[in-house]
């Protein structure tokens, strides 16, 4: 009996292998497990988002979805691997704006080109937010700008990593306000927080969910959202006179040669997942913004951002 079962278990991978070999011949998509790969370490915003989507996604697709990780080089390792993966839609990778735009732009060889990865759906965003410690001398954004003008380069702003939304957001803000600040990248959103709370940096360019998570330990000065956010007691940058609305956009991408109908099927599935009431509720708990960019709109978003960033970085002389 036991031996029979062992045999049956042993046959499963063989069957999967066989299926995989046949799947090239067309037919319904999807017909086997989808690999949802995150190019980051587990535990971050992308991971939490993917874990929330996993179950509803399985229901919509009718196939199991496995989440795995391929971290390294701020995501670049995973994305360059994606460009070499099979264009069959079974390898879906989390991808973030602005990372996928800025890395190829600012590194000599990031291992991939932005256009070599095909966006499927962008479903979540977290706008940038400039926050200071609760007992900081800066009450408003105006205070901060005034202090920065007084000692150029003397104020330090921490954020999550290089070439991230926090990084470019700090550059955008400094450019728009005509100030000079020192941006210090930390190892992720969480790692930057103690530097602020301990008074080692003057302010933090972080993401809006942190305002909620850190509660009354911090004071948000302004957020880079299009409109004021529910439950966030801070003005937008636009309201303060700076026309800035940006943040991190999270979505999924596939290899660029993936057939359009497969991309559409995947996009529809992610769109349907975004309607799931439980997921909407959980997104709210994490203070994530729900976004709905279909493949075409995602491309437009990437194009628009690319132009914006190119102009800014060119002006700052950062494009080597």
């Amino acid at each position, binding site marked *: 009996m036991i031996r029979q079962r062992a045999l049956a278990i042993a046959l499963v991978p063989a069957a999967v292998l066989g299926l995989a070999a046949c799947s090239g011949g067309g037919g319904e998509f999807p017909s086997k497990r989808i690999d949802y790969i995150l190019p980051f370490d587990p535990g971050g915003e992308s991971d939490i988002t993917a874990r929330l989507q996993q179950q509803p996604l399985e229901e919509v697709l009718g196939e199991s979805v496995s989440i795995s990780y391929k971290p390294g080089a701020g995501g670049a390792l995973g994305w360059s691997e994606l460009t070499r993966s099979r264009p069959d839609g079974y390898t879906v990778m989390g991808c973030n704006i602005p990372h996928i735009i800025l890395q190829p732009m600012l590194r000599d060889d990031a291992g991939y080109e932005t256009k070599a990865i095909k966006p499927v759906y962008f479903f979540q965003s977290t706008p940038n937010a400039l926050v200071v410690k609760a007992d900081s001398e800066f009450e408003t954004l105006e205070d901060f700008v005034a202090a920065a003008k007084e000692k150029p380069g003397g104020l*330090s702003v921490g954020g999550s990593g290089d070439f991230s939304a926090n990084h470019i957001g700090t550059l955008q803000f400094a450019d728009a306000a005509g100030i000079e600040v020192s941006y*210090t990248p930390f190892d992720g959103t969480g790692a930057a927080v103690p530097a602020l709370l301990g008074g*080692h940096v003057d302010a933090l360019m972080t993401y809006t969910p942190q305002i909620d998570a850190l509660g009354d330990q911090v004071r948000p000065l302004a957020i880079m959202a299009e409109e004021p956010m529910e439950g966030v007691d801070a003005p937008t940058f636009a309201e303060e006179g700076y026309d800035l609305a940006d943040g991190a956009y999270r979505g999924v991408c596939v290899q660029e040669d993936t057939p359009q109908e497969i991309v559409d099927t995947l996009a529809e599935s992610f769109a349907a997942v975004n309607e799931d009431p439980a997921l909407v509720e959980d997104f709210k708990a994490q203070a994530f913004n729900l976004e709905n960019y279909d493949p075409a709109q995602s491309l437009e978003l990437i194009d628009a951002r690319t132009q914006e960033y190119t102009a800014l970085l060119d002006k700052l002389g950062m494009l080597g």
Partner: protein
Amino acid sequence: MGDALQGLVDLLSPLTLLLVLVGTVAGMAIGAMPGLSATMGLALLVPFTFAMDPGAGLVLLGAFYMGAIYGGSFTAILVNAPGTPSSIATAFEGYRMTKQGRSEEAIVAATLGSVVGGLVGVLFLLFLAPPLADFSLRFGPQEYFWVAIFGLTIIIGMSTGSVLKGLVGGALGVLLGTVGIAPVGGDVRFTFGEPSLQGGVPLVPALIGLFTVPEVLKLIARRSREFEVQPGAEAESRHWTRMTTDLLRKPVNLVRSSVIGALIGILPGAGGSVANLVAYNEAKRASKERHKYGHGAVEGVVAAESANNATVGGGFIPTLTLGVPGTPPDAIVLGVLLLQGLRPGADLFTQSGDLVYTFAFALALSALMMAPVGLLAGRALQRGVVLLPARYLAPAIAVTSIVGAYAIRSSVIDVAIMVVLGVLAYFLGRVGVGVAPIVLGLVLGPIAERGLVQGLLVSTDHALPWLTFFTRPLSIVLILMCVAGIVWPMIQNRKQAVVTEMVAEAEKDRA
């Protein structure tokens, strides 16, 4: 207090107890596999916790985490495969003990250390969370830099042979750690034109490569183990209860290492990897039998294991009170807390006290459960490894190393890096450059660099930013510790040299 009682009552339901047991056992299994991190295992569990109520989900995650940190000691001891930086020091002494046929004693020591460490960490979490969290905030980039340097000073005490070769190993490790994208600044460095090296030398494949692969190579080349298992030896050896009481006779090491673990554990980002090394080094420094270290000192295993399990409770201090995850696994627990609508903060203990206490008690209970489960499973595993013929042990370790190096980010390149480093480590070992300094450099180099560059960037308002590394009060304390770390082993080495000389003289006289 009412909350604490309620937390205890909630925990004592049969279902919760079962969850703690399942979590601990599953965690141990994952932790024992090199390459499968606690973080990865926790991420797999998260969807299950969605279906549970908040308390049960947290209990499962906490128990799993505690078990995973302990499980790492098995492979470190038995086959020299530390699955995470947390069990590096365990491998130093534990594997030597295995070579001497004392693996059972090492497993018992690791179990005892883990149980006590886990409990001490939880005590810190329960009673000292708010003040310790405030203290951890005083560590800025400059202090992180000095903490890493302090860790590097361990190299000097550890180089038994030649200090020069120890330093060579350390510098080599730091250099290897600079490959890939710079941790701060985003520069692409030393990739030899190979984009897949942009991710740097991945830590876990490197650990397996440096520690385990040379042992596999030796096994294959010799066609046998370095030690032969004598069937009689098993029966002669002490019973495990005897081993435990022997270890308990020296409680100072246990308590000191646990406290070190809990305290260093509160430092986000550095805690886990540094704590076991520092505790090991302090145990060695305080020991009257220093010469035993590096040759299978059971106290070294106790120190490393009690420290790394104490970081579990310590790491949750900033997680729960500040919302800052102390370690990557903490980040996952934090995410689940947020999903359940709990907001970390100093008032979490008062507002959602019962839940927090249930969680803390679950960690403690899991630590206690590790004793019976670990002694059963750990000793069974130990017997299995000892009795397996060398010709099956070698391929079994090899295939486990390969799958472990691969799984961490599904990359064949990582497996290649592992083997290359393993061969390199073997030859360096033959010329007297040990792997321990290389690993220290590899682990601590990036922490030091982060602190260094961030410290310079945040101090742009100073005329001379680098001066801030020497003027902050906490930095000065750490600098003094670094100096002591360099000078102390030198004095001790000299003393020892004098003693050996005297012994030699005396023997000459007798002859």
